């Protein structure tokens, strides 16, 4: 029953979305409001139908309806309750449904917010959004049907991929997809602006907050993904330049470039063409990311032809890019810059450089991700370009970006005088140099780390300088401390929200620099009662193997090791890493245990063990400053929240 209902909802949803997209255009072309109204109703209908699809899938998951192939593959009778819900987006078909659902929610918000406020752009925005929705519903109908039947009906399902049985899987895909789909709103407005011919700053002003929301969720998705990788996968890292990670990182890079370059357009009426290009690229990269991760092309070019989903995504991507860039070419005349660059030492120029480096980083990631595919397709030689390539090329780019992050917000528009430079940057530059010198004295020898630390201190210095000045100015004009500090943040929420996001990025940068530069790892086999010692930064850790125990969970068996961790001060703590045995997997999966700390994590993985519990092989790592990534993510969240608040400077 459920497969039929679900399939019907999908197909009707597709037809309705297509109809709505066309009806909105007819409405605006003929001037008949009724057409537009039916388009709106279609949008509501599409939302209801996709919501019904999700409800049906949830019902199928909760009732173990193994006649649905997707349910049978991604759950079994032992799957815990929460993971039967998150299994919804545990694989390809379900994640497309989640994506479509979020897009339909965004479409609904667009309808509610803009039908009266933006009568001119709105019909086109609606049409574009429904067009994208139609594509996803088409994917749900033909190449990736979530409601495909399975017969004969198996007595039990296979079960969720054990790696996905983790709290990170509840939030990571949701955040990531909210980010991905969020960029379709600014994209739709950009297209509408081009179609109507209102290529001024209007679409940028309208979608400013949408862009920050999308960017924020994408950042959060990336960080949670890193956390998942760190505490589930058991290799002690959070980022591997894996194609799946790169797929999400590329739109983040272009989205970041877009967030910055729109400021130049708002202020100086320049870069109109560039901003439109950036949002088209960002939207295209969200589709490309899905194509890359979901078509199987990463494994090999040849697996691409096995499923048809890759063809669908590639065709839609080509169509969207071709359409968008044709519109752009058609409207080039209206996109001439009204301002001009005056000097290389100006805020405009710093922002341009920021964009250049962000695009260079995007290209690097793109190139490194697709080069193996190109090599296989063109030369027939399979190669891989791993982390060394990405690190080699990206580290200088990101260091340059850090530097620009300090300069950009404080340097003068148009032309910065020597006086302006001295006033804003002398002290922060000195602070950075002093910080590097102090770290050097403490024995930090790595040039890249020293550079990164100096830049972080420099940028933090510029932010402190600017904020301190603003607070003093408010104090002089008679504000109390509260109004001068908190009030200032709220009054200029966009500027200071951005600053706090920058601070968050700095904290993340410290975490990355620290964890990449120092890591201690040892692998050793211990007898029961035996210990191993490793040197941390200022303390020596001792890990003693106390024994193994076994337990049976609802859907897997678990062997848990008991280890006593003692640090230099004699503080004892029990760590219990284990190995989980799932019936659907032939090999066990590690369950990591760790002690997180501000400066150091002790990270313990149980490898092999003797069956009588007398011996265990462990991998023991001391990872430095990884926690700063998560703290930075928290700071970033606060800053983004502040920036999303309505702008107080302009009267509503």
């Amino acid at each position, binding site marked *: 029953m459920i497969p039929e209902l679900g399939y019907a909802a999908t197909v009707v949803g597709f037809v309705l979305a297509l109809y709505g997209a066309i009806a909105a255009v007819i409405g605006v072309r003929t001037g008949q409001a009724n057409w537009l109204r039916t388009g709106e109703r279609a949008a509501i209908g599409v939302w209801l139908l996709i919501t019904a699809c999700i409800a049906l899938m949830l019902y199928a998951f909760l009732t173990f309806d193994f006649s649905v192939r997707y349910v049978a593959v991604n759950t079994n009778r032992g799957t815990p309750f929460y993971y039967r819900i998150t299994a919804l987006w545990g694989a390809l078909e379900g994640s497309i449904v989640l994506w479509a659902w979020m897009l339909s929610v965004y479409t609904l918000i667009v309808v509610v917010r803009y039908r009266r406020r933006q009568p001119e752009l709105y019909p086109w925005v609606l049409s574009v959004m429904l067009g994208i929705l139609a594509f996803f519903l088409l994917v749900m109908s033909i190449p990736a049907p979530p409601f495909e039947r399975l017969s004969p009906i198996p007595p039990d399902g296979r079960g969720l991929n054990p790696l996905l049985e983790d709290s990170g899987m509840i939030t990571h895909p949701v955040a990531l997809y909210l980010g991905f789909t969020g960029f379709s709103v600014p994209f739709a407005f950009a297209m509408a602006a081009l179609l109507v011919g209102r290529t001024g700053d209007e679409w940028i002003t309208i979608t400013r907050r949408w862009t920050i929301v999308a960017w924020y969720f994408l950042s959060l998705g990336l960080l949670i993904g890193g956390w998942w990788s760190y505490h589930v996968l058991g290799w002690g890292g959070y980022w591997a330049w894996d194609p799946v990670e790169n797929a999400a990182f590329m739109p983040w890079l272009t989205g970041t470039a877009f967030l910055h370059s729109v400021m130049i357009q708002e202020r100086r009426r320049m870069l109109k063409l560039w901003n439109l290009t950036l949002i088209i690229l960002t939207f295209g990269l969200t589709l490309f990311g899905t194509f890359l991760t979901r078509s199987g092309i990463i494994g090999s070019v040849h697996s691409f032809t096995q499923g048809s989903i890759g063809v669908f995504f590639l065709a839609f991507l080509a169509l969207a890019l071709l359409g968008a860039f044709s519109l752009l070419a058609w409207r080039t005349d209206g996109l001439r810059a009204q301002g001009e*660059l005056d*000097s290389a030492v100006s805020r405009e120029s710093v922002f341009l450089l920021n964009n250049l480096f962000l695009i260079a980083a995007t290209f690097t990631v793109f190139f490194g991700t697709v080069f193996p595919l190109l090599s296989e397709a063109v030369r027939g030689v*399979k*190669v891989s370009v791993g982390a060394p390539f990405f690190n080699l*090329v990206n580290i200088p780019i990101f260091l340059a970006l850090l530097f620009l992050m300090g300069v950009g917000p404080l340097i003068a528009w148009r032309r910065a005088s020597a006086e302006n430079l001295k006033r804003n940057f002398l002290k922060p530059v000195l602070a950075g140099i002093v910080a590097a010198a102090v770290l050097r004295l403490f024995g930090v020898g790595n040039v890249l780390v020293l550079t990164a630390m100096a830049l972080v201190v420099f940028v933090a210095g510029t932010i402190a300088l600017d904020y301190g000045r603003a607070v003093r100015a408010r104090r002089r004009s008679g504000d109390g401390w509260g109004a001068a500090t908190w009030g200032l943040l709220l009054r200029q929420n966009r500027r200071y929200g951005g600053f706090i996001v920058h601070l968050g990025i700095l904290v993340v940068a410290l975490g990355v620099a620290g964890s990449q530069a120092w890591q201690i790892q040892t692998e050793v*086999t211990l007898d029961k009662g035996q210990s191993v010692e490793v040197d941390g930064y200022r303390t020596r850790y001792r890990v003693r193997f106390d024994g193994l125990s076994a337990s049976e969970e609802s859907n897997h068996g678990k062997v848990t090791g008991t280890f006593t961790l003692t640090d230099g001060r004699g503080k004892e703590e029990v760590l219990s890493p284990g190995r989980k045995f799932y019936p659907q997997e032939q*090999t066990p999966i590690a369950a990591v245990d760790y002690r997180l700390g501000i400066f150091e994590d002790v990270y313990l993985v149980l490898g092999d063990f003797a069956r009588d519990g007398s011996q265990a092989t462990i991998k023991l790592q001391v990872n430095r400053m990884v926690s700063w990534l998560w703290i930075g993510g928290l700071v970033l969240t606060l800053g983004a929240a502040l920036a999303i608040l309505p702008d107080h400077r302009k009267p509503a």
Partner: protein
Amino acid sequence: MTTQRKFVAGGLVIVAALGYLIWSGVTQSVVYFVTPSELLAAPVANKTYRLGGMVLPGSLKWEPKTLSLAFTLSDGKGQVSVRHRGAPPDLFAEGRGAVVEGSWAREGYFQASLILAKHSEEYKAPHDGADPGYKELLRTLRREPRTDEKPPR
């Protein structure tokens, strides 16, 4: 106008520098992917390869005390013996696909620095009433009586 031209020139210099960075990055860090028979046809010592094949059943030898792992990778046409220091990673087992990164040693084996096991996505319907292999292991660890004499696997 000259300011604009200076910007274009400066931009081109930066783009050229970045292009060089990418080009040199690729040539320095590209790793060739080979199968055992391809490697055996023309092995170059001390060059980094990624070697992919199936772990030959019966070839896996793991000594916990010395952390030495040895196994044979096969592509049906050729066999390469691989050595690695460290415990077998998750998803690594005999009869399954694995990709290892490392280099060819002159002594005639492949020294792996990294093992990337492949995850199987295929659907396997569980047999009704079958005892999952791990239960035996759990019993052993709990020192419960065995139900049969077959070694746990």
